[in-house]
């Protein structure tokens, strides 16, 4: 029988510490610090509630990321179904015990924080499918009976989140799952079929949409039509970014955000605020940091031996990329406004937690890159 090379399983702590990807860690830290300054600016140049809790969250979850990095990759592989189901149960819990805010039921009240399970599900689904496609033989990937389970585990959380209603997060969850399936080798035709089915179901879906969601989509198509109504956010965000110019208006001088023209400036529009104050140069800086983070995760995927690790890292990197791009596309007026936070930068504990969890697992892939999972 095949004897797994067990050298890695008995790595010393020093070895583990050395094999951490410090470029990735540094990028995350820099991004974290930048986000603190941005948050400080949204508080009007003071350390107020948002800044304070953002700093605490960042460091708490950064610590969590660091600790999780040392968890054996095998553990993640072994518990991934469990993790998925735990998150699914939390999501179902939201439906019954969730807190409602601005018309959407998304949060569970825990003693120390209000948790948004849909954010965690972004990672949970990737983990589940990574394990699933890791385990089934390559010939079976495109067999119909092996497609049912992935579809099922994807549809369940997506439907639960859509019903909250939270269109943005459900799209992001689904996109993470689809990326895993794509990487695992699911044929293009299945994606094509599902797109056809999706289009066929669209009218039905639209009838389920809340009026404000319909308005958002229409607004995206023509924001100037109703500048004081639904298109307000897109227009104001474009004005803020555009008026930043090459080098921005200067730290704490973003008039658009200061004078409250920017809605949701702590969360979805944090990039707008930063871009207004630091201009094109600042935007490029942020974009480069994200590109660096994504490429480091992809690099981990490249050197990881196990297909579980590869699938996870590639999928997570791509999902992370999608989160960033969807958020930027949104604030730049390229995509409709669907609530989607900018990883690490945006205010929000659950999103920070989910991203740090995802990064932790990726880092564990790095540390245990040569360890087989089964």
């Amino acid at each position, binding site marked *: 029988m095949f004897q797994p090379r067990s050298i890695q399983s008995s790595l010393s702590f020093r070895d583990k510490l050395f094999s951490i990807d410090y470029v990735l860690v540094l990028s995350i830290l820099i991004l974290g610090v930048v986000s603190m300054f941005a948050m400080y600016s949204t508080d009007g140049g003071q350390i107020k509630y948002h800044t304070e809790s953002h700093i605490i969250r960042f460091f708490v979850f950064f610590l969590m990321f660091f600790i999780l990095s040392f968890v054996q990759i095998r553990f993640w592989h072994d518990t991934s179904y469990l993790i998925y189901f735990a998150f699914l149960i939390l999501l179902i819990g939201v439906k019954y015990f969730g807190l409602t805010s601005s018309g959407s039921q998304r949060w569970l009240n825990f003693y120390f924080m209000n948790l948004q399970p849909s954010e965690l599900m972004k990672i949970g689904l990737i983990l589940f499918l990574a394990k699933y496609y890791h385990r089934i033989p390559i010939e079976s990937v495109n067999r119909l009976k092996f497609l049912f389970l992935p579809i099922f585990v994807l549809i369940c959380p997506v439907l639960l989140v859509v019903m909250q209603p939270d269109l943005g997060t459900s799209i992001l969850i689904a996109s993470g799952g689809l990326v895993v399936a794509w990487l*695992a080798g699911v044929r293009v035709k299945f994606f094509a079929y599902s797109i056809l089915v999706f289009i066929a179901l669209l009218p039905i879906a639209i009838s389920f949409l809340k009026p404000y969601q319909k308005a958002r989509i229409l607004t995206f198509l023509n924001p100037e039509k109703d500048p004081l109504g639904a298109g307000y956010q897109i227009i104001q965000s474009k004005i803020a970014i555009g008026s930043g110019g090459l080098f921005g208006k200067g730290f704490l001088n973003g008039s658009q955000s200061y004078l409250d023209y920017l809605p949701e400036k702590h969360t979805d529009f944090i990039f707008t605020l930063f871009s207004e104050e630091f201009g094109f140069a600042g935007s490029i800086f942020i974009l480069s940091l994200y590109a660096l983070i994504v490429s480091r995760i992809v690099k981990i995927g490249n050197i990881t031996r196990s297909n579980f690790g590869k699938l996870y890292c590639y999928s997570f990197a791509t999902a992370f990329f999608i989160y960033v791009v969807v958020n930027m596309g949104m604030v730049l*007026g390229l995509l409709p406004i669907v609530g989607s936070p900018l990883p690490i930068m945006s205010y929000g504990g659950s999103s920070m937690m989910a991203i740090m969890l995802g990064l932790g697992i990726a880092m564990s892939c790095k540390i245990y890159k040569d360890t087989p999972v089964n």
Partner: protein
Amino acid sequence: MFSSGSGNTVIKSKLISRRMFLLTVSKAVVVVGVLGRLISLQINESSKYKTLSDKNRFREWKLAPERGIIKDYFNTEIASNKQVYQIHLIPENTQSIEEIFVRLKTILNISDKKIFSLKKKIAKQKPWEPIIISDNLNWSEFSRINLFLHELQGVEPIVSVARVYKDSSSAHVLGYVSQVSAKDLKNKKYLKEMSVPGMAVGKTGLERRLDEQIIGEVGFQRYEVNAFGKRIKQIKVDPGKAGEHFKTTLDLEIQKYTAQILGDKAASVCVMDIYNGDIVSLVSSPSYDPNAFVHGVDRDYWNNLINNDKKPLTNKAVSGLYPPGSTIKTLVALSALENKIIRPLDTVKCKGKIELFGEKFHCWKKKGHGIMNMRTGIKRSCDVYFYEVARRLGVDRLSETAKKFGLGKKVLRDFFEERSGVVPSTSWKKKYIGQNWYLGETLHSGIGQGYFQSTPIQLCLMTAQIANGGFEIKPRILFDKRKNSLKEYLKFKNENPGQPLPADLLVSNFDLKPLFKNQENIKIIKDAMYSSSNEPGGTSYRSRLEDKRFTFAGKTGSSQIRKFTEAQREAEVKQEQLKYENRDHALFIAFAPVSDPKYAISVVVEHGGTGSSAAAPIAKKVIKKVLERHSLRQSIHSLPGDSI
């Protein structure tokens, strides 16, 4: 097992890497897209968005400029500004418009109607534009508002300035100001950039004529505002510019005095300096309170004005049209002399009426005046004498003289409401009525009836130009240093005391234009007017002033509203017995003092009866007042070295 499992894993891993490569390529494309968008927004279109951002950031509130002051000749303010207490409401700062109005209604006395119209206005304008709830609160209302201010979010107490008129004697000359109307905005170009809530514009009179200069320049306050319209900080203030001040030639004392004499008669008085054309007094009555319009006129008050038969809103002195009646006889006589139609001593016998062209022409004196020459004809205002003169003169020559002396065209350019009247001629009738001239109409014209229409200011100008020896003057109501030839005139007078002005000197030194062919003719007319006022039998003899300083020479006139029927004539119906609206208009023109004429006056009393009984007594009082103030008037602008 091992090899196959391993192979499987390797194949799988290769597949994953291949697909990841495809994903990476598409990611790169997406990143390029995002980058492109950033470049387009932050570099290419940055200036456009910077402008938009500033537009968001700054908001300007316009400030109504202070209106210029209008003064009289003695620098007394006749139209000035006073502090007023107002409350404004900024709709977007309120929590509920409805609630605010309910609260305001309990604090102030606002009618439901007013609230309704205010709400309609609010719906039309931008939410951050203030709306004036009340623009003229008294102190107790204003302090009550301030007391409750903490409960009235969005309400702002404002101390502003508004027009105030000291008295109503000059109401018609000054006109009034009122809120800008949609029509004003459309018609008056200078208002385009000036739409400031609460700003008043001139609607009539000088206020309207001078509006563009007197209104001033709008100022503004620029604030940085947040998305909710709340002012964060003041960026810039431009206080605007107060309007120009204007000085008129009017004498407020005389205005008041005249207005008081006229009372509520439908009448007008015009007094003019015969040398420089300065209008010393221009009063129309009954008057109205121009202050009533400043803050929006009360409906009842407005209806009262509109429905009043005496037409208090009309400036009768410049826009009232009356047949000149017998006052025209001065010009008929002058025209006849100038055209050598008749000599002063040629006589005509008046038997009370003559029959010409198959029509009976009556003299006002049924029994007739007997033998009349030019002097007695004017003195006693004999109609038959002038029928004969007019017949020989013909309407066209009369018309020429009348026009020369200022009838038939606007006298001032300062009033939009001024009218030009009618000086009939054969060509005029052909053009405007489309008929040929009848000879009988010449006779009517000869006594200032028929088609003749003139304004009191025209009659005053006519008299002034006769009184000054027959020179053209350009009447003015705005004080003007440059054109004032008074100084030279006064200098000449001081150096040659008591000496009448030689004509050629006036012509050359004062740049005057003679209206006569032979100045002797003017003297004959002036002498005839003297006799009319100061010799027994003269039509205004009863109103004479015997004091040499005030003695005036005048001519009465009564213009018929409706032709007397034969029956009325037989019954010798007196004017007092007629219905008010059928009575004749009473006219009187004069110049004074006779020895050294300085001023001309015209008085018109609508439906006053005869000129001698209704108009001359008024003129007598006003003339006295004007002459009493003459030296004062001169002293104020003739001090040596003082610029005039």
